[in-house]
């Protein structure tokens, strides 16, 4: 049984824990403002807000209801468009109406939820951040021009910099962006008896569920599920190592001050890989265990020569990530095992570059992605790790290329040689993300890009571009 607050009402659902909230909301609760469009987290039409009581207080995220299992909302507050409506249009709704951001209306409720999520979470009224917050909302009618105008107006209208996170809900109620009942939600949730469900050992582990519920939603309804607890800390520095809890979300990585220090472009790089509602749910561990050959984080961590800490009933073991992927969607993980942590040496991150190219720049599966880390001194490479996705059945650590680079001078000749060696290590196939020939050419270009970005004073385009 799941007990949670749905808009203003406390509800108890006996439905399967693996039923997605989209079905709970629309089919069982008759709240039809939440739209059923793609059921794979690609369009945002079913976005709702999920509020949870965390150490810092009540926090909300916009999430895709099509990928959100009922079991994951226990003790939380689920807000649909109906739960935001007042007597009149609220300022977000009015801005969308006034700026021509609405045509057929099917994407609109999700858009309102995403923008409300932005107002609940953004530190400042930044247009770029607001655009990022709605980047997971597809609209087929407006060309987004009206949506951009509405965002611009809203960012001018409300100054989030003057609203602390502690007072944010009060401020949004005052601004009439949230209805007044939000002021009592924290108390209502606190009064709920603690959620207790004993997990049996042979159940399916569910973290964010953002891929699991795309792949087999019907099957999951019939399974006993173990919802892994969210990570609150997530990322820490331990001696010379960075330790990331497997349950850390992509958004936690993206906004981590430690990560931003080591990887200055991480905030932008991770904006490419998935939308805010997916980032809020998808976990690092899930992305690795999924073993997709174009896994964005797999490639990222392969290039950091990361290790996985794996736990089972009998103990813990550590495995290098580059040894973790055995074949297409096959990993080293045994039955009953679970990835606990990802670790890498922070020294590896001295110079790091991440590249991703897909048919659509944002929120698309990569044609090829690649990452490279280089430790260097005096114009020479001490150690390099190069990884690429989309060029083999697994996210690939380019061992030969990485080994070749060790000790080499950072010159165009080295790069050109590395590119040739890399071509011998990969075996791309032609599919909807591109032809094999394209992927080969693209990997060459991305390796060029790594070096051009990291060594702008040493590596130039002209010597690389030999026809």
């Amino acid at each position, binding site marked *: 049984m799941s007990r949670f607050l749905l808009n203003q009402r406390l509800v108890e659902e006996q439905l399967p824990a693996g039923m997605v909230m989209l079905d709970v909301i629309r089919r069982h609760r008759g709240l039809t403002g939440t*739209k059923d469009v793609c059921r794979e987290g690609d369009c945002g039409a079913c976005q709702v807000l999920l509020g949870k009581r965390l150490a810092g207080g009540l926090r909300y995220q916009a999430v895709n209801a099509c990928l959100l299992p009922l079991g994951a909302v226990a003790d939380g507050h689920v807000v649909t468009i109906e739960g935001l409506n007042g007597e009149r249009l609220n300022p977000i709704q009015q801005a969308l109406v006034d700026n021509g951001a609405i045509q*057929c*209306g*099917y*994407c609109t409720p999700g858009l309102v939820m995403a923008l409300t999520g932005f107002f609940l979470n953004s530190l400042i009224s930044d247009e770029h951040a607001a*655009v990022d917050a*709605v980047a997971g909302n597809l609209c087929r009618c407006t060309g*987004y021009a009206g949506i951009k105008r509405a965002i611009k107006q809203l960012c001018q209208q409300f100054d989030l910099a003057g609203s602390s996170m502690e007072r944010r809900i009060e401020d949004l109620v005052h601004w009439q962006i949230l209805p007044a009942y939000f002021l009592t939600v924290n108390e209502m949730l606190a009064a709920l008896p603690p959620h207790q469900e004993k997990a049996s050992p042979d159940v399916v582990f569910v973290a964010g569920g953002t891929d699991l519920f795309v792949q087999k939603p019907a099957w999951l309804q019939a399974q006993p599920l173990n919802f892994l607890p969210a990570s609150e800390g997530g990322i820490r520095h331990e001696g010379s190592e960075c330790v990331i809890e497997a349950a850390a979300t992509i958004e936690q990585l993206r906004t981590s001050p430690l990560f931003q220090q080591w990887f200055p472009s991480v905030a932008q790089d991770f904006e490419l890989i998935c939308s805010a509602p997916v980032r809020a749910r998808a976990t690092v561990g899930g992305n690795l265990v999924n073993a997709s050959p174009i896994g964005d984080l797999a490639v990222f961590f392969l290039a950091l020569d990361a290790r996985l800490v794996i736990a089972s009933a009998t103990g813990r073991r550590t495995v290098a990530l580059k040894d973790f992927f055995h074949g297409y969607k096959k990993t080293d993980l045994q039955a009953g095992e679970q990835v606990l942590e990802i670790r890498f040496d922070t020294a590896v991150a001295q110079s790091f570059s991440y590249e991703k190219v897909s048919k659509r720049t944002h929120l698309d599966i990569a044609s090829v992605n690649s990452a490279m880390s280089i430790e260097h001194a005096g114009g020479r490479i001490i150690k390099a790790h190069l990884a690429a996705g989309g060029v083999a059945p697994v996210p690939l650590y380019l061992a030969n290329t990485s080994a070749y680079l060790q000790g080499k001078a950072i010159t165009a000749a080295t790069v050109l040689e590395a590119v040739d060696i890399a071509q011998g290590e990969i075996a791309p196939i032609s599919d*909807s993300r591109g032809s094999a020939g*394209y992927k080969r050419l693209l990997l060459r270009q991305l390796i060029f890009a790594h070096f051009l970005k990291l060594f702008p004073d040493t590596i130039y385009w002209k010597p690389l571009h030999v026809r």
Partner: protein
Amino acid sequence: MYASDIDLHAQGAAIFTDDMAEPAGLLHAWPVVSNIAHGLIERIDLQEALGYPGVVSILLARDIPGSNNIGNAAPDEVLLAEKEVVYRGQPIAVVVAESAAITRQAAGLVRVSYSELPAVFDARTAHAQGLHIAPPRIFSLGDVDQAWQACDAIVEGAAASGAQEHVYLETQVAVAYPLESDCLKVVSATQSPSMVQRVIARVLDCAMHQVEVDVVRLGGGFGGKEEQATGWAAMAALAASRVNKPVKIRLNRGDDMRWTGKRHPYDADFKIGLDKTGKILAYEVCFYQNAGAVADLSLAILERTLFHAGNSYFIPNVRATAVSCRTNLPPNTAFRGFGGPQALFVLEAAIFKAAAALNVDPASIQQKNLLQEGQQFPYGMQVENCRAQRCWRQLHESFGLPQRQRTIENFNASHSLEKKALALMPICFGISFTATFLNQADALVHVYADGSVSVSCGAVEMGQGVKEKIRNVAARTFSIDKVRVKIESTNTARIANMSPTAASCGADLNGQATLLACRQILQQLRTVAAGLLGGDAEPEQISIQQEQIYLNGQPTAISWNKLVSEAYLSRSALSANAHYATPEVFFDRSEEQGRPFAYHVYGCAAVEVSVDCLRGTYRVTSVSIVHDGGRSLAPAIDRGQVEGAVVQGLGWMTMEEILYDGQGQLLTDSLTTYKIPDIYSAPEIAVEFLDSDNPAGLMHSKAVGEPPLMYGIGGYFALAKAIQAFNPGWQAEAIAPMTPEKVLLALYECDC
């Protein structure tokens, strides 16, 4: 107070078909579809599926009481395949069960065995095998064969544009309710309520008046629900009539993408000849349209391709041939632009190639050949109220194009790995259904005794704002506040024999009919007012301004409410229906000559792109537009139509790529693999409306739905120019879409 659709949408309170409360006993339907592209059905085994708990019935072709034919333009499309399947995804049976999940489970248990037949998936192969929907058609003007001699440059080439998935966010859906006396009410997400009604009556062998079709609104259509909502509604109706229970059918995203048709892919061969000044003297083109397995609307779409073969250019000698080729893909169908965009792409490809041969910018050829008043289209119509030159000039002036071109040249000279380019895209699009008989509409207007107004007409709201425009027409005609006017659902019991809401003319046709109906009531009200005022007052001296009755331009004490109430008490008609037929449109297909359009919409766009020449990625950075919109009935709506159409057109030209495997199986069957533009990929769009009128339009307005989609074609050629700036040796090909893959391969063409 009646809320506008837009306000309802903002609150998630607008009811779409899938949002309607489900009646007790509602059953669900789901098709069993062919999983081969072409073959004969040998055996259908229902036994296991019928035994599945919750299954109520499984219907086959033999269960159809009437005609197993849902074809509109041609009787070549069955509702349920009986002997032969002609595409993957073609419905064979309909499972009716207690839940949607059960229907899908049970559908998987229906065993169909086939003997497979050869299948064809591309237009040129089908053409070579003589697989045509109909014989080729040829439009011609002047004497092409003679004209080549006078040309200084002649270039030939091929061009191809890809399919495009509609991605209406609301998938295909219908609910059918059985009523007394073998009647049915069907709520269908269709652009063509009357066609759904007619086809259901044909399938069920009943009279049209026994079938009531009701449409409140669609979550996007774009042409994808003009013809292809019909089959699903007919399946729901068939099931409801057989089991005598309400039945709902609703496709999920993947099935909708796999089973329904798309924008037609086209192949084309062209030959274009110019004199040395860049004047186009002759153009010969042959279009090969990939129709898919059945006719659907392909021939009408093909005809519009021919009408727009010359875009907004005058070419004195033209021969345009077009043939619709039968393949084993789901029937391709209407999509915003309706064959026009495919024609424009080929001509722009020809101009681009000719420009290279003459060593000039394509814009100089475009400009030199823009249409002028009094010239002739290749189908015999005179060019009237031509705005081509004005749009071009105003675009250059308003958006500082010469300066921007110089900025781009300077940028490219100083950047080796990023190149920018700007391409121009003039458009000219004919407004009217090219099937002349469809250019008619009816409206039914009621003024209730309390002064509120109800309008029924044949226009289906799908986000294009037609309800709001028609609301404006009624409010302006009566001179009353808009909140008094409600636009009713589109319903076949109130409006008979509607044309589809399509061809950009939903507001034109239905608005004209509404205007006529309102005027009838207004005339009654004037007579009543004159009587109330007494003396010498004549109806002609009465007017209404902002809900106040005026006599000879002077306000009287009579309000709208008072007048309506008095009119009722004096037994005057407060309801009216009216019929509108677009005047002076005709087309003679034996001569391929006529005046098929009421008027043309013009415009011109400048599309600017920036290409990352290291990665092959790109951004369409801005689109600047001068659009000829007449006197708009709703400027904000028209701006939204232009902006949305541009991005849809850019999507078609850039990232939207439909891929099939060798067996006709769609590979891009989800929003994960088929990418439509997102907020990041949408450019900045600046739209300026030309100050113009339109004597042939509704209150001088102009249709706006389709034409601006074709501005997106400029995106393809801007990318081609940017590629050439990096790799001058690239032999430009014209194969859309221009994906990042094509860009990177072009940038490094010599490298691999």
